[in-house]
């Protein structure tokens, strides 16, 4: 077919941030997938609870301390996370570098406490269905912290290399921060189920 030029694209930027970025949308889609997964395990929790004469089944409710500490760390971490995202939008590399180091530490800290949370559940995954579901909920969320941490660490290294001074990295930092918010937000209902619904 013959062609006629009607639009000139030459002045467009090479990369967009936020909703003009495909990886931003990809991160959103991934959040939708994982969010559905979290919603399902929470639904399973309530389903099994509705069938059980007593809940928790043959177990004391989990010890509150480690889980609440993790919640505190996660909620607090949202603050530096917000700033890292803002600095990335402003393309301030120096501040972003500091922020990524801070977020790396704030990703490791909850994992350390999380290790203690498992035994604080006061039940084993193979004791009964209650034990199975709480271990899965905790495990699912832990997997998310771990994968996001891996992402954060790699990105933290990257922003110190020559690849750091690049709009794409700032977009990656924003996407990473968005996902960390997701990891924190999804923890809250899980925390509610494991620690508080079990005490109702």
């Amino acid at each position: 077919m013959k062609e006629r030029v009607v639009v000139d694209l030459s002045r467009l930027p090479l990369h967009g941030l936020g909703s003009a970025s495909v990886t931003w949308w990809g991160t959103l889609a991934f959040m939708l997938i994982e969010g559905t997964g979290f919603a399902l395990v929470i639904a399973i929790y309530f389903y099994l609870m509705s069938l059980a004469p007593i809940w928790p089944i043959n177990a004391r409710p989990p010890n509150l301390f480690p889980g609440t500490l993790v919640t505190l760390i996660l909620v607090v971490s949202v603050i530096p996370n917000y700033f890292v995202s803002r600095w990335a939008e402003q393309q301030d590399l120096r501040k972003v570098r500091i922020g990524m180091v801070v977020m790396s530490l704030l990703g490791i800290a909850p994992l350390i406490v999380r290790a203690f949370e498992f035994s604080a559940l006061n039940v084993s995954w193979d004791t009964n269905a209650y034990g199975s579901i709480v271990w899965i909920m905790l495990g699912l969320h832990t997997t998310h912290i771990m994968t996001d941490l891996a992402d954060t660490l790699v990105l933290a290294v990257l922003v110190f290399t020559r690849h750091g001074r690049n709009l794409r990295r700032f977009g990656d930092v924003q996407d990473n921060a968005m996902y960390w918010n997701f990891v924190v937000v999804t923890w809250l209902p899980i925390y509610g189920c494991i620690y508080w619904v079990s005490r109702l």
Partner: protein
Amino acid sequence: MSENVARSDTRDTELGRPLVGAALEDTWATPSGFWGALSTVDHKIIGRRYILTAFVFLAMGGVLAMLIRLQLARPEARLLSPDRYNQIFTMHGANMMFLFAVPVMEAMAVYLVPLMVGTRNIAFPRLNAFSYWIYLAGGLLLWIAFALDMGPDVGWFAYVPLSGPQYAAGKRADIWAQMITFTELSALAVAVELVVTIFKQRAPGMTLDRIPLFVWSMLVTAFLVIMAMPAIMVASTSLILDRLVGTHFFNPAEGGDVLLWQHLFWFFGHPEVYIIFLPAVGMVSTLISTFARRPVFGYLALVMALIATGILSFGLWVHHMFVTGLPRLGESFFTASSMAIGIPAGVQIFCWIATLWDGKPVYKTPLLFIIGFIVTFVIGGLTGVMVASVPFDTQVHDTYFVVAHFHYVLVGGAVFPLIGAIYYWFPKITGRMMSERIGRWVFWLIFIGFNLTFFPMHILGLQGMPRRIYTYQPDMPWSGLNLFASASAVILAAGFLLFFVDAFRSARYGPPSGPNPWDAPTLEWATSSPPPSYNFARIPVVFGASPLWEQNETLAVADGLRVDRRELVVTSLVAAKPQAREASPRNSIWPLLAAISTSVMLIWSIFSPWAVVWGSIPIAIALIGWFWPKGVPEDEA
């Protein structure tokens, strides 16, 4: 093939028309040979691979079906032992649903959607490559297990407790469960790619109401995949955990529940059939438009019907559980919703018939399959209305009536449009036409063979024949119809065989097709057949829903993109206004490496939970290699 690193920022406006193609080919081409094949991220090469692989699985599943029909042709036949039969019917269902039906629809979308929206590659091309290898690995896992007499034998739906640790010995059920993980991972990856491609990479001017209906159907399907597949991931993971590490999700003795499995499975399972059907709906709209020589009647109604079907499909799942003893009131709700989904289906059928009425039908092979689809799918949809009724279902659930129903909707509703679509898009993919003459034979053999094989099964079900039985006794009145169905299946098989023969022959010797042999309206027909590696020399710009019919001789395009860097246009969500000249990744071996390490971890985890820990390390390394910036022009921003 030069690396183009030395040259910087050469735009297509600087080169004359003939040079633009050569320069783009330099930048976008996949090197020939083994390395090129393993590292390509070209959606067309990957899409072709996907389609071919899916059809290989179709053929293998068809062989299994013939074995089933051979065994059931006579009462108390001794062709297959019960163990072998149970593996075969499980494999037939699992293979067709997970390795053929969903992947082939996704594969068609992987190939066609970027072309139809006027972009150069699918979003996340490396993820696309990864998803194919994962799909292949899952298929190999299942079939190699079957060849080793370790095939799953618990039905494609693997109900507990039959598939649980107590009653399913060995690793058969675990292999089934892990195959699910592979195929769902692959499907989810493609779904994400499609959503982002359709949202953000449409040609400038392609507003929401100008998106081709096939693309709309794939958008809705992708969302269905995203929202439904996690349910079966959770289910299959819970099953493996019950079997491997002693969890009690499905063990009623320790607070678990047998029906939890069914709820999880069918919450996925019902949308799954729409994941298969909606792409076919998109194909029907496309083919009817081209062969009725007019745009489809009722574009808005058809889009609304797609969305309504997608949303409603999440509210039907309990109709697979009508005889499990759930509360009557709850079940009745699902009768209403299951019947209600017939309404958007009706809207679609009526709009299509209206299109044919007002158009001028061109009776080529693709249109024959569309007509066959209407005849057959409506039967399937109506038997669906029948089984949607709880009381009706109490007599036909788990009988051959249901077997008839779902084959009518899956074969009539999805496979017929698919074969029509292959006849239609074969010229675009290969540059050659399939045979019209053989196509007619294929159509009639499949249409007649299918109806003769499956219609009697409605009667068999009402006459008391349950499903999933490896044989039946001579004093039951089922022998006659079973023999008839088995004999008719030979006709059906002959039709498919002829189809494969036609496809192979035409790929080599078919007459050259040219860019637009059907005079069709959508953008994929604006480029050559097959398309060059870069799809379009210049990104098209559209002003309506049928660009090639509106723009006749001259295609409106956009220029200003670089030819020394893989560039495409990212546009806004609703109005498709250009936002950025985004980079598209180059060929990479990392997706294959990531797929290999993921497959190793997943297969290992069938045998040991520690696989998840140790197996993650190579995966992490592969992912880091994948995402680490390489300093190529595509990294610039």
